[in-house]
């Protein structure tokens, strides 16, 4: 799994990237009450705002860490947005993207680098 400085995580299987937000990000936002999912089939450039996560206090954009086309969205978040809080890395995934440019992920961090980023905060 890889991580961004904006606190998204990316799991890569073949040319498909599963994307979510990290436990740290979910914790900071508070319990989510709504997730605006990207549209299936939409294509995005790296760092486009492609989803929105909303807690009772605020709405935050989720930036796509890699260019590509959305091939699956986590529909269960429509009725259970709190899955992002309770299972950030499993059931709380947001979307799966067909990777257009793998080099976009060159600046993503591995787990130890991301943990260090959090410690340095």
């Amino acid at each position: 799994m890889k991580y961004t400085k904006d606190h998204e995580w990316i799991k890569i299987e073949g040319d498909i990237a599963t994307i979510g937000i990290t436990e740290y990000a979910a914790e900071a936002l508070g319990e989510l009450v709504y997730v605006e999912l990207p549209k299936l089939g939409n294509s995005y450039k790296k760092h486009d705002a492609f989803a929105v996560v909303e807690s009772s206090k605020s709405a935050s954009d989720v930036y796509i860490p890699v260019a590509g086309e959305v091939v699956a969205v986590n529909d269960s978040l429509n009725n259970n947005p709190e899955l992002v809080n309770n299972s950030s890395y499993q059931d709380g995934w947001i979307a799966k993207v067909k990777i257009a440019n793998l080099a976009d992920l060159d600046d993503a961090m591995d787990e130890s680098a991301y943990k260090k980023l959090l410690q340095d905060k």
Partner: protein
Amino acid sequence: MKKTALNETHRAQGAKMVEFAGFDMPINYPLGMLKEHEWVRGGNVGIFDVSHMGQFMMRGGNSAEFLSKITPTNFKNVGNANAKYTVLANENGGIIDDLIITRMADDKFFIVLNAGCKEKDAAWIRSNLTSDLVFEELIDRSLIAIQGAKAELILQKFIKNGDFGGNLANLPYMNLGSFILVDGEEVLIGRTGYTGEDGFEVSIRNSAVAAFWLKICAEDAVEPIGLGARDSLRLEMGYPLYGHDLDDSTSPIEASIGWVVSKDHTGFIGESRILAEKSQGPKRKRMGVKLLEKGIAREATEIRKNGKKIGSLSSGGYSPELKISIGQGYFAPNEVKLGDKVAAVVRDREIPAEITSFVFVNPKTKAVKK
């Protein structure tokens, strides 16, 4: 940044602190905003630090006459111990602030007003004050709210004696009395609040507030609640928030709180507009907006009817009780009526919505006993 006497206590309880009206205040505790809201609505008790609000005392034989001039409410007819929600109106009938004024005695009134308006309100009141009246801030006192179905049960445990026979069961909604706590501390307790639940607000000396707060928090039914849940609780009740739903251009008639204008009362500041709007109807009126589909419409969200902008939300957000987004805003009564299907524009997307009453959840405050 200003701090309340409970600042260290909030930090020790793990609160997330934010700036609000110049004060360093808890937005939520470790429980989190949503669960804090549900805790208060769910038959338990929440304790809130609202010491940022201004507490003042007015004294003098003509206090009732004076308050009947600077608000649309006739305080000459208000009995001892009665608390009235009202507004300070300017010459144009706009709202300088909304506040609660309680008659403590014939010549003594306790006034609680909004933190963000404190200096402005005090300057306005002093500029109108007659020389026979004394108006002073109670700077050595904190204010905490204890709200929820079990509030009476919990708070009563800490009371030794006082007004109303020392028994909170005898204290009606929108009434206030003086009480002695079991440790001898003298406090003022009003059956008032901003959540729509039964509950109390306690004015207590700064030097005694932390110990009192911690004793209440030690009760199983009690959790400390931050400003975040306070806002969602009040939004469900349709209570307006100054600076968002009310401002100095908004009249109490537009705000649909015309009941603050006492019957047959005249001679108050701002009366020409307020009385004209009361008889002829206002050009715009505060109404509720309820989303019919998922999505969150917050303050400033544009509201459209048939594709045309008809207004925007003065406040809005997620209702944990209704599990849908709710809000309030000002709309022209000749363009918009209850039940109209409208749309809330969130990130360029029109979400179906409906114009409703701004009271989304029925209040559980105790009715005034006659």
